[in-house]
């Protein structure tokens, strides 16, 4: 639709170029920052860990020296090949990689002149803390150090109302209430700010906000995906994540329980629910799909997701061949695969429409005590009715023939009229068989015929009908069963799939980890649990860095390493490497506490700066990688909803449980090809106004409002969402019935407030963006109110207002 607002690939590169250039003047080329990215991008594909054309390998200094020859550059084949005019000799060969620019060639020459020093890729070296002066927030220390070096000033503090709104949105995903604002504005001291930070970190809504971020990685959804796209019950896992985050479960434990909770000694129900993390894979169960292939795809997805989430590594490349850039071999990949290859079958052949069905380990998650009592009561009633029905059956059976004859019309059989069936049974396929001659029936249709007979016959109906109703109720509150992980007791062999093809198994491999990284902890078991322990080992250089970087990106919009998903050789160098390492160590040394790190960040003055950009900042650092001012960016999809409902005074803060179904365009789900189409029961009452995290996510046709604001179908692990700005977003905020209803409700509230139009407008504005309007803004609102002669126009304008959908 429009490209103007897009961060085109070219624009994305700008900040990188900018930073590299800024660093350049100060020092000779640094291998990690300047040289390895070049070698990796232009050379390693053919002369790297995966392939060594002409027996040349450039990723290891010893092997590369013969070509580099830094002691005598006249004889350096490497320098010759990158500078020659001879197109046949020139490297990289045309079409294989982007040609080297003059600057890049000169950089490589300078590096050779300096003796071609190598350094291990920074991300594979264990992080250490650099010294930070006492009483200085580490974030401020490193951010200012860089700003001073670049000669950019930092910004003054944000005004208190804007700051509280920012903090509240970042920590709990909801704007502050009017009362909270008033209290903070009465005392916006540093001590009061710290109290706000602590209050919000302790809020039960903290987990709801931060769970969304994790659920993107976990590719959590409420359906299988693909054709049929049947709903699945995974929400207890979503609730587990919210609770774990609220409890500030140490990140190492949080990881171990999700990856291998089932392998812990005497696992609790919660620890088993946690393992649903890896049962969240989408599953292609369509007719014609091949069982083994589907199972293999799900396991491959588990390896890839694990790599992205904990290691910031694209492991999937190594499914087919040794990784072209990173030190990950195909052998490593299948050793990791082996830890996921121990699970029982998950797919069976006899599903819908010639398709398949998901099977495999599940556990029942107990409901609330109230639900448990209701179930017990219903079960007692059910038993009673069943006994009565049993004794009445002979009467109905005696008249079966006559009853069946009533379905014969002029010469033919007709289908059973639907009103003779209980609602829920109408969907049972094959019921139309009853209306057919007995000769056409099969053995399997007999129970169905009897079911309808008892439901319909006057002797049995008084029992059969209420019984059906009780069964329906029991079904509705049945304790949910969640898919979890479990290993078979007998070890399964794992083969290297040649070229990634599961039909071409090669060598057998056992359990293992990536050889080029740290070793497996000595006492770690050789299974998924061992893998999990290895991932969160203090010796792992990646996990803590990758994790704090992702939290940083959630708050500042961009990671210290911009490529949050990739810390390998093709990654972008960190803007503040010492800060990243400092926080990574800080996380590990403080019991892997997420709230500890987030508190460090939001307590910094860097975080508390104003988000107004100066002309100098826009010119020097347009992407604000140096953080000379606080970032501004649009709220993520779920928070767009939460924020609007809060402003409108509609939000329900009810937590947990089954997914909710906000209004969406009619029959949207019917657009998924499926044999058994689930209904979309639009939520009524409180559920209609709950937070976005609870909105049902059917992968094949996810909620269009959320998709329009960059949520994804969660078909795979999502490490970062795009940030787009489109006309469809404008249309959604103006015309989606959810937002129209919110605007009407907001308008009614404004109308009901005491005071004159002006004081109402001020209050409405403040509800939307926390601060008070300036004279122009107030005038615009009053103008809208006057010409529209309704508060609706004002309410809509405020819900569509840039500042209302943006964290400022």
């Amino acid at each position, binding site marked *: 639709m429009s*490209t*103007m607002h897009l961060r085109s690939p070219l624009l994305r590169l700008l900040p990188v170029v900018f930073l590299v250039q800024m660093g350049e003047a100060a020092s000779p080329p640094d291998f990690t920052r300047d040289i390895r990215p070049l070698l990796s991008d232009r050379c390693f594909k053919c002369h790297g860990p995966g392939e060594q054309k002409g027996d040349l390998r450039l990723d290891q200094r010893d092997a590369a020296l013969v070509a580099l020859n830094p002691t005598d550059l006249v004889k350096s084949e490497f320098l010759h090949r990158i500078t020659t005019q001879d197109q046949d000799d020139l490297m990289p060969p045309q079409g294989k990689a982007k040609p080297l620019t003059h600057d890049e060639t000169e950089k490589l020459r300078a590096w050779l002149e300096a003796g071609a020093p190598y350094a291990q890729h920074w991300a594979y070296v264990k992080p250490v803390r650099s010294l930070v002066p006492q009483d200085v927030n580490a974030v401020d220390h490193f951010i200012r150090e860089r700003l001073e070096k670049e000669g950019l000033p930092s910004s003054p503090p944000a005004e208190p109302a804007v700051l509280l709104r920012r903090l509240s949105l970042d920590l709990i995903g909801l704007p502050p209430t009017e009362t909270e604002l008033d209290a903070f504005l009465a005392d916006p001291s540093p001590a009061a700010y710290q109290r706000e930070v602590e209050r919000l970190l302790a809020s039960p809504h903290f987990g709801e906000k931060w769970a969304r971020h994790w659920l993107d990685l976990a590719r959590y959804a409420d359906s299988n995906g693909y054709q049929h796209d049947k709903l699945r019950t995974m929400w207890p896992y979503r609730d587990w994540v919210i609770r774990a985050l609220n409890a500030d479960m140490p990140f190492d434990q949080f990881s171990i329980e999700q990856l291998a909770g089932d392998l812990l000694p005497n696992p609790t129900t919660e620890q088993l629910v946690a393992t649903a993390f890896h049962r969240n894979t989408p599953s292609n169960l369509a007719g014609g799909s091949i069982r083994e292939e589907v199972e293999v795809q799900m396991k491959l997805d588990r390896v890839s997701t694990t790599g992205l989430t904990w290691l910031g590594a694209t492991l999937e490349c190594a499914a087919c061949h040794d990784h072209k850039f990173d030190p990950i071999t195909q052998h490593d990949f299948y050793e990791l695969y082996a830890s996921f290859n121990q699970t029982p079958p998950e797919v069976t052949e006899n599903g819908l429409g010639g398709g398949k069905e998901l099977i495999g380990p599940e556990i029942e998650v107990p409901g609330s005590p109230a639900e448990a009592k209701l179930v017990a009561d219903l079960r007692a009633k059910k038993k009673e009715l069943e006994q009565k029905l049993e004794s009445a059956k002979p009467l109905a059976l005696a008249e079966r023939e006559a009853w069946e004859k009533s379905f014969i019309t002029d010469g033919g059989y007709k289908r059973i009229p639907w009103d003779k069936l209980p609602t829920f049974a109408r969907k049972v396929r094959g019921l139309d068989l009853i209306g057919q001659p007995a000769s*056409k029936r099969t053995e399997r249709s007999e129970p169905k015929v009897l079911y309808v007979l008892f439901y319909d016959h006057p002797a049995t109906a008084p029992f059969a009908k209420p019984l059906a109703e009780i069964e329906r109720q029991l079904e509705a509150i049945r304790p949910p069963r969640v898919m979890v992980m479990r290993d078979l007791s007998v070890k399964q062999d794992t083969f290297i799939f040649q070229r990634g093809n599961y039909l071409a198994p090669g060598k057998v491999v056992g359990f293992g980890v990536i050889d080029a990284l740290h070793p497996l902890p000595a006492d770690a078991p050789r299974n998924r649990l061992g893998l999990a322990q290895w991932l969160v080992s203090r010796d792992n250089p990646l996990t803590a860095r990758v994790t704090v970087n992702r939290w940083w990106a959630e708050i500042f919009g961009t990671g210290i390493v911009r490529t949050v998903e990739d810390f390998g050789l093709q990654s972008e160098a960190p803007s503040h490497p010492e800060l990243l390492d400092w926080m990574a160590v800080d996380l590990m040394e403080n019991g892997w506490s997420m709230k500890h790190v987030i508190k460090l960040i939001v307590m910094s003055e860097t975080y508390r700066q104003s988000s107004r950009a100066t002309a100098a900042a826009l010119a020097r650092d347009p992407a604000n990688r140096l953080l000379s001012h606080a970032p501004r960016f649009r709220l993520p999809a779920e928070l767009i909803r939460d924020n609007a409902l809060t402003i409108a005074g509609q939000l329900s803060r009810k937590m947990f449980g089954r997914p909710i179904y906000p209004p969406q365009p009619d029959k949207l789900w019917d657009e998924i090809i499926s044999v058994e189409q689930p209904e979309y029961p639009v939520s009524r009452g409180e559920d209609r106004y709950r937070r976005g995290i609870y909105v049902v996510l059917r992968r094949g046709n996810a909620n269009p409002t959320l998709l329009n604001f960059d949520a994804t179908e969660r078909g795979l692990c999502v490490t970062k969402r795009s940030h787009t*700005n489109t006309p469809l977003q404008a*249309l959604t905020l103006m*015309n989606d019935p959810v937002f129209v209803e919110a605007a009407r409700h907001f308008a009614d509230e404004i109308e009901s407030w005491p005071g004159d139009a002006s004081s109402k407008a001020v209050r409405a504005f403040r509800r939307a963006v926390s601060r008070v309007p300036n004279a122009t803004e107030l005038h615009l609102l009053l103008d809208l109110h006057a010409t529209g002669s309704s508060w609706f126009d004002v309410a809509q304008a405020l819900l569509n207002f840039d500042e209302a959908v943006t964290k400022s």
Partner: protein
Amino acid sequence: MNTSAPFHLNRRSFLRSGVMGIGSLALASLLKRDLAAASAPHSALTHPPRAKHVIFLHMVGGPSQMDLFDPKPALAKYEGLPLPESITQGRRFAFIGPDAKVISSPYGFGAHGGSGMIFSELLPHMAGVADDWCMIRSLKTDVINHGGAQLFMHTGSGLFGRPSFGSWLSYGLGTENENLPAFIVMTNGLPTAGAPIWSAGFLPSQHQGLRFRGGNEPVFYLNDPADITRERRGRIVEGVNALNREVHERYQDPEVLARIAQYEMAFKMQASVPELLSLKNEPQHILDLYGIEDTSKDTFARNCLLARRMVEQGVRFVQLYIQGWDHHDRIYEDLPKACRQVDQATAGLIRDLKQRGMLDDTLVIWGGEFGRTPMAQVLSASGDATPPGRDHHIDSFTALVAGGGFKGGLTYGSTDDYGFGVIENPVHVHDLHATLLHQLGLNHEHLTYRYQGRDFRLTDVHGKVITPLLG
């Protein structure tokens, strides 16, 4: 980010259009191709393009190549017998087994046009433009079930999460008309894979295909609530933008300017989309060309004409889906019906594009996600066998391409006597993608997007340009 929005209406001119509604004159200019925007900001062109637009007519389910394009008289000889084991060994089947019995085609075939291209009697209109088609009889794909194969045909992968062809084009070439999406989808019955086949995958989400639906709200949330008049909507939009200009003053955030432009565009789309979809100014002879009897009906023929209108307005990629080609049984009752739904409309589209000089730079693709087996499939319901059909087949099938520099009148590739395997000039779906991209001025190896540490392509790590297909 980029603040050079192509239409920065000033406050007054915007208010005017808001208050008076968009008049017909304004509309006409809005619908005109925005030439200023034609030089897309991030064009990834690697060489001069032959084609600028794509219309992909997808026959959902998989049309039977041996009943339509690739006659196999030898099948009559083997009627009722299984294929030799040497042919079927190691091959994949969806529902039937390798021992299923051969069934021949009852249809007559004829040579058409100056080229003598072969068509079955079921597609007389498409045969009438034989010399415009390039027929590829040797296509192969990797995935044997519908959803996966459709994903493969449009994203180059059978798994969820990759960008669709149209999304790649939107990303690589940008749009020619800032008032319309670059990638539009229309459906007559939905494809099995659903919305994920026009998803932008990991590309920024504005590259996703926008589905225009039948009915009175072609785009979700396009219509204002009943009590909001056009004038009132204009006033609210202007109110929002006036507030946003204040925010821009305050924060100097360029993203705010982009949002202002998006609200202006949204407001204009509310008028331009219904106008685009209205056929009331199309002359009768054009409606007749496509075989449109009732313009209010959401038929494939109507969507073909809309596709032409969209391409005319600068839309990059128009994707049409039509259900009804998955003939597991009753193929000889249902295939003729399926053909009748698309035959005249498809030929009409080709003729119409040609007479307007648009076929030269528009690629029209006609085909399904795979083909069908030479062996019969027999379903049984309630114990009675139904008349036969054919099962999914991935080892050889046929698709047609017209325009955009593909060689008209060429029949490429050949299959064995049974129509089971390719014996000459195989064309994998990856190759088809590479060749189509080539015509669009894009080297398929260079059109990449870095995501999660990997440079992704539409053609994965495969694909080659099949130059003999090109004129």
